[in-house]
């Protein structure tokens, strides 16, 4: 067995025979007597190419949607471009050579122009030029399109693939794509993902000596196992089965409104820690983000994140979630994290120490900076803000006071914000749960952080393995506090959710819903099984 490494471009698994595309035929250059006729031949080829591309565009719209199909419109414009055809005709006339050669030359020149650009996106466009050149050359030399001759389901292997070739792939015969070149953002990768075909790009060691051999393509990890041994085969058979189950589940319940069998609506949200996870949320059908941990902005550099940096991050999430609620939790960091610029003194009990809202209320300029970024971003989507580690009314009053100040300052400057942004607090200390009735009057929602609530209620450190057995999230004391919180919330007409790990425990989730919890927020991978459970309650 040989393992070839590349970059996973389309996260699926394929089992099949590798079939290599024999595409790279060199273009011959020969003299032509009738230059006019050759020019006409070229112009006819362009017309044929445009017709082909129109068909491709139509197939692509169906397969991958209009946005991804747009590249074929771009190919059409490139084919019709005056500079391109001007160059081809010029070469035919001045060198008195065949159209194929003129096209190949022109294609190479324009391709190189793109390759020399700084911008990666622009460099990728050289592939589009190659695509249209290859098409013209193929039409001129009267050859068949590659891959028309695949008889059985195979994993197609090539040096590189053009977008046209990818879209044309018959999904029943092409069960995987692996290329030697290519990048994750190339149109080919994007098309493969949209079409649901497993793909791996940038496999340096890929060579035609592997043609005809049986292989497993792991589009998640970007690994190609040629002539896999039994252990590998079994491992992937299992993985493929899991994947198939997940897809069936997804198909069954995606888009279905999340409610119990008795008809109670439950908001099913996701917890995320940075921007890259938003895609995962949407794929797993999250109705919103119940906890957007803002700490990543504070942890990634050696200085406090600027308001602009934060604004861009929050705005991006809001826009990508397209109108679905995004709850941003203000900074929750303590002495247990290494953040030099915060100058936090070492503590013997960071969990019970100077952290989160306590730091924020002490450092108004930093806190107001975050609030300002959140308020501004809220003009671009449905954002809510939530304060962590609350243990008294006074903290809530102070935090709301700063929020009001920031709103006034931004309004004075005429900067667009969401005036009516929803504010909530986390209930993660026993104190907060016990006075929830009072706290509910100040906010629009509660989010119960069961991880911390458990550790504070049962007096055991989550990180301390020697007391792990005491840290039981299903302890009745914890549930009592949760019930108290839910009652207080509903008595005051506000909603209450759970964003701790407890929510992803299916049995616990059922209990929580029966207690009256309105929202559950879990990690994206836990969404679908949880939704399935909720629908059956």
């Amino acid at each position, binding site marked *: 067995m040989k393992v070839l490494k590349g970059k996973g471009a389309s996260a699926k698994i394929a089992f099949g025979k590798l079939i290599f595309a024999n595409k790279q035929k060199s273009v011959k250059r020969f003299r032509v007597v009738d230059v006019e006729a050759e020019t006409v031949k070229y112009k006819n080829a362009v017309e044929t190419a445009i017709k082909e591309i129109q068909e491709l565009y139509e197939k692509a719209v169906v397969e991958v949607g209009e946005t991804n199909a*747009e*590249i074929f419109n*771009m190919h059409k*414009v490139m084919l019709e*471009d005056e*500079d391109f055809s001007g160059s081809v005709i010029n070469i035919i006339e001045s060198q008195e050579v065949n159209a194929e050669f003129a096209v190949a030359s022109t294609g190479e020149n324009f391709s190189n*122009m793109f390759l020399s650009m700084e*911008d990666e996106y622009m460099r990728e466009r050289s592939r*589009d030029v190659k695509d249209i050149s290859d098409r013209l050359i193929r039409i001129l030399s009267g050859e068949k399109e590659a891959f028309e001759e695949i008889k059985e389901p195979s994993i197609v292997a090539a040096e590189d693939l053009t977008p046209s070739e990818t879209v044309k792939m018959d999904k029943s015969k092409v069960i995987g794509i692996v290329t030697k070149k290519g990048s994750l953002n190339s149109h080919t990768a994007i098309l493969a993902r949209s079409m649901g075909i497993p793909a791996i790009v940038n496999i340096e060691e890929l060579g035609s000596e592997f043609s005809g051999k049986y292989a497993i393509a792991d589009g998640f990890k970007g690994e190609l196992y040629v002539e896999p041994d039994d252990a590998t085969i079994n491992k992937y058979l299992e993985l493929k089965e899991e994947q198939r189950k997940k897809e069936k589940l997804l198909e069954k319940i995606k888009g279905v409104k999340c409610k119990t069998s008795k008809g109670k609506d439950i908001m099913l949200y996701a917890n995320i820690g940075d921007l890259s996870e938003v895609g995962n949320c949407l794929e797993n059908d999250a109705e919103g983000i119940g906890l957007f941990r803002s700490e990543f902005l504070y942890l990634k550099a050696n200085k406090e994140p600027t308001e602009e940096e934060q604004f861009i991050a929050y705005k991006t999430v809001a826009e990508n979630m397209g109108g679905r609620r995004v709850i941003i939790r203000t900074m929750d960091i303590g002495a247990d994290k290494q953040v030099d610029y915060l100058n936090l003194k070492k503590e013997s009990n960071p969990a019970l120490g100077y952290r989160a809202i306590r730091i924020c209320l002490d450092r108004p300029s930093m806190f107001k900076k975050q609030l300002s970024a959140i308020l501004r971003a809220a003009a671009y989507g449905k954002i809510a803000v939530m304060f962590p580690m609350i243990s008294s009314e006074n903290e809530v009053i102070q935090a709301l006071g700063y929020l009001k100040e920031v709103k006034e300052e931004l309004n004075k400057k005429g900067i667009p914000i969401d005036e009516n942004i929803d504010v909530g607090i986390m209930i993660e200390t026993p104190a907060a749960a016990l006075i929830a009735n009072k706290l509910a009057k100040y906010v629009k929602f509660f989010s119960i952080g069961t991880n911390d609530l458990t550790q504070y209620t049962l007096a055991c450190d989550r990180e301390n393995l020697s007391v792990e057995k005491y840290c039981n999230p299903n302890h009745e004391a914890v549930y009592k506090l949760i019930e108290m919180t839910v009652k207080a919330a509903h008595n005051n007409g506000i909603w209450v959710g759970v964003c701790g790990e407890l929510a992803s425990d299916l049995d616990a989730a059922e209990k929580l819903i029966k207690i009256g919890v309105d929202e559950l927020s879990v990690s994206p991978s836990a969404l679908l099984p949880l939704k399935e459970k909720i629908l059956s309650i």
Partner: protein
Amino acid sequence: MLKITHKVKDENGIHARPAGLLATESKKFKSEIFVEKGDKKANAGKIFEVMSLCVKGGEEIVITINGDDEAKAFDALAIFLEKNL
């Protein structure tokens, strides 16, 4: 001659898709239409020329329109830029 000054909102700048759409739009008119960035100039109807200007998001471009149907072209392009760029 008519001019439109426009700040590119699309964070990807004038990448292939809008360049293609701009070319298609410009070719509908008889007027000569150019895209200028700084001291570089490209014919709006030529996708490769426009792309080689490498206009990035946030940069300013000037569209110049010269010809019999420049008024119509001006209106159409102003709308086009607002929508697509």
